[in-house]
């Protein structure tokens, strides 16, 4: 489907979604509370069939966090990007690891690096950081480590 067709289809599924222009892919802004139901529709809707989550990450904007999901369909080869704003002090979002299993590892990485709490994740533990890591999340912009960090 082309970008315009995708837009029409997605508005039908989720009227509260807003779109961002300009990027390479179609960017969709979604509220955190709608995400899980919307993700299921993206995966299961016949005409959309977004079965491959090729990138899952988070961006710290100092005022808020943004979750970024890059999705593609191996059948139709169309791509979208879903963005979800999260509260920086208490970031919480539903896990999508039941829908796309690659999200399991990627969400664990975001959990330790950004401190996002994924609800209903099957196994939310530290993946890369050492066990018993205390303190802040390293990929946040205000993270300071006077011993190991080199500023250029």
């Amino acid at each position, binding site marked *: 489907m082309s970008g315009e067709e995708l837009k029409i289809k997605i508005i039908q599924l989720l009227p509260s979604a807003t779109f961002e222009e*300009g*990027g*390479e*892919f179609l960017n969709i802004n979604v509220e955190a509370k709608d995400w899980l139901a919307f993700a299921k529709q993206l995966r299961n809707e016949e005409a959309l069939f977004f*079965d*491959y*989550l*090729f*990138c899952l*990450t988070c*961006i*710290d904007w100092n005022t808020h966090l943004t979750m*970024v999901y*890059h999705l593609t369909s*191996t059948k139709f*080869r169309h791509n979208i990007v879903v963005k979800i704003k999260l509260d920086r002090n208490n970031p919480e979002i539903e896990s999508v690891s039941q829908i*796309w*299993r*690659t999200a*399991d*590892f*990627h969400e664990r990485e975001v959990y330790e690096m950004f401190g996002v709490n994924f609800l209903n994740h099957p196994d939310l533990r530290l*993946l*890369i*950081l*050492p*066990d*018993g890591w205390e303190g802040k999340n*390293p*990929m946040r912009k205000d993270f300071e480590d006077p011993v190991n960090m080199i*500023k*250029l």
Partner: protein
Amino acid sequence: MYRENEIMDGIADEKARREADETGDLIINMGPQHPATHGVLHLVVTLNGETIKKVEPHLGYIHRSIEKMCESLTYRQFIYVTSRMDYLSAHINNHACALCVEKGLQLEIPERAQVIRVLMDELTRIASHELWWGAMAMDLGAFTPFFHAFRERETINDIMEETCGARLTMNYMVPGGVMADIHPNFQKRVKDFLILYKRKIKEYDELVTGNIIFQNRMKGVGYLSAEDAISYGCTGPTARGSGVSCDIRKLYPYEVYNKLSFDEILETEGDSFARYMVRLREMNESIKIIEQLIDNIPEGDFQAKTKAVLKLPKGEFYTRVETARGELGVYIVSEGGMTPYRIKFRSPGFSNLSALDHMARGSKLGDLVAMMGTLDLVIPDIDR
């Protein structure tokens, strides 16, 4: 500070250990210093007898937070760090980053640079697969193939050394093209390599592929269905062994790949042997690409004219390339400055590894090594 002690004291938590005691399961550590993990990968394997119940990867032993490091490096500097990610396909990592910066700058690359880039990528792919082939056979107990593989790989490294000045972390691709023009001997030496390779590749099949012991250990082991491969985000030869068409060179062609004739290798069995065959046959496709280009390197500049200080406009840029292990994505978020605001590397190894638990459940411990071999794991690529 480091966690080895804690892990050796008691793997997993108290609850898991009590459960293991009750059911008679055995929990063993594979790695972080195990010869078959090709680096510092730590797997906690739950066994019942000899049957695998669960494989739990513990990562981070070589985590250098390259993403965080890149946030304080300029668009020219950060590319050099990425050579250290997947060190077996350093050229292709550099290529992905250079492409992403070029997309942001909307820069046109001279055709000579494009052809040189593709040539280097394919040579890297062959070198990477050669090392994988040797290491894979060694994992299964055959030591000799390793030397056979390195015989050819050294020739490629010599070619790289002549043109790029380095054998492993080349740092040859820069935004705008390549760092320096190819060495005058380059074409001749690559052609010599092609002759050598074609003579020697038959030995690979004679020595390993046709071996009945080898086949018995590979066939029907580590099955991954096409749906699972997509769901776990597997790419590269790992997914193509399950019949998933995912070659970025074909699907989203970059540089001159759309003008070349080569095939995407697909196998449908989804077992270790299928993944093995995909990689082995992929080397021949790379040879085909090199043959088409080596006599047709266009004249012209090897680098486009760029400003001394690169500044990307505000926005988001995503590129993907096909490395030897699969799809590498580079996601740059720019705020208009000299350094990226946020950079994310979607590394193929990280996603491929996540499928290991699913593949290994129910098979024997000895087969785990064969499965890991066919995933072609490079640990710095997983940890970043």
